[in-house]
């Protein structure tokens, strides 16, 4: 199990960085959170206390991102308009660049920000996301559902219909 944890860490570091970028919306902050997480893992490994839990690194990365976000000058948006998912949404998304998506997700309030970051990382089961976020299934579903509609509303503003 420990070995799997280590293997998981080496194989999933790119995902860990992507998660940090989605959470912070800023490459420098993402790198900082990512490096702090890996350093913490190395420190625990050296002491023989690295948890075998494959979710640990993402749990720690979320903690690091939230810590960095405490000093943020820009408060998260409180309300956002919502619109139903349109048929051309996928085509509109294709015109975006990843930084725009990261910027939008990182501006969401907690725990919606973490829920969307974990969800679109396409890495975890619903049960794992529940554990990571300490949420009930209906709460998690609601956060993602509202996130979709809010992103669609934003998408309609920043992209033209194809």
């Amino acid at each position: 199990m420990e070995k799997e944890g280590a293997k998981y860490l080496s194989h999933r570091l790119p995902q860990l960085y992507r998660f940090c970028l989605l959470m912070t919306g800023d490459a420098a902050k993402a790198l900082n959170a990512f490096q702090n997480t890996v350093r913490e893992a190395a420190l625990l490994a050296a002491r023989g206390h690295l948890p075998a839990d494959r979710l640990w690194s993402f749990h720690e990365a979320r903690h690091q991102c939230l810590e960095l976000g405490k000093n943020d000058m820009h408060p998260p948006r409180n309300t956002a308009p919502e619109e139903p998912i349109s048929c051309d949404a996928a085509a509109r998304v294709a015109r975006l660049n990843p930084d725009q998506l990261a910027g939008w997700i990182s501006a969401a309030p907690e725990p919606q920000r973490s829920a969307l970051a974990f969800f679109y990382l396409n890495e975890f089961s619903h049960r794992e996301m529940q554990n990571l976020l300490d949420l009930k299934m209906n709460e998690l579903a609601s956060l993602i559902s509202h996130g979709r509609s809010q992103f669609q509303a934003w998408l309609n503003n920043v992209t033209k219909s194809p």
Partner: protein
Amino acid sequence: MRSALESARTIPEAAASLTAQQQFDQALAELVQDIKIPREAAEWFVNADLIRGPKRSWKTTARHPAILATVLAVLVLTGSGIFFFFERLHEFPGSETAQRLLAFANTTRQYQFDSLNTDAINLGDYFFMKSQLEHYDIPMQFADFRARGARVFDDEDGKRVAQVVLAEKGVQFFLYPAEVSAGRASSKPHGRPIWRYVEGEGWAGAVQERDGICFMIAMHGNEEELRTYLGDRKR
């Protein structure tokens, strides 16, 4: 949830909405995968394999609360199983009656017996003549025991019980009807009757059945002492 999704697919509007949502999620997930990893982050990937915890020893694994709880539960179950197995080993048809009679051995006083002064071999006739009890015979190996008193009484199940007090202190005989629904053989096939042991009230009893009658020799002490006593008698 799966059935709800399947149902939704049968409704055209819902199916279209569901498809759009899936494509939307997929497009966003692909966009996330397009995030470029900066060189500073990628440098960590090379040494990530060095970050690993210590190999978990069997001792550490054994100390895990879940393992400990499982082991404890298995030990308790095994212990209970062994306890009940040995309890069952001591049980035999008529063991409850024998156990009860040991209390009589402990509490009956000399004056409650009819006085006798005869060899135990004569007791079969005595019980038949006096109380019409058939087959209440003393086994031959105890034929030379000196009987000082005897009595016949009904126990709480209405069974006729014969109790004999002997010249030898701390030893008594009991004879009582065997249970009809005897589930276990009380004697070896084509061999001598076998002894079954009971303990209680500071007495030990050895029971054997013959011709539907149980004979019990009760001795003040424990089963071990009684076994030794019977072994010595055999020699």
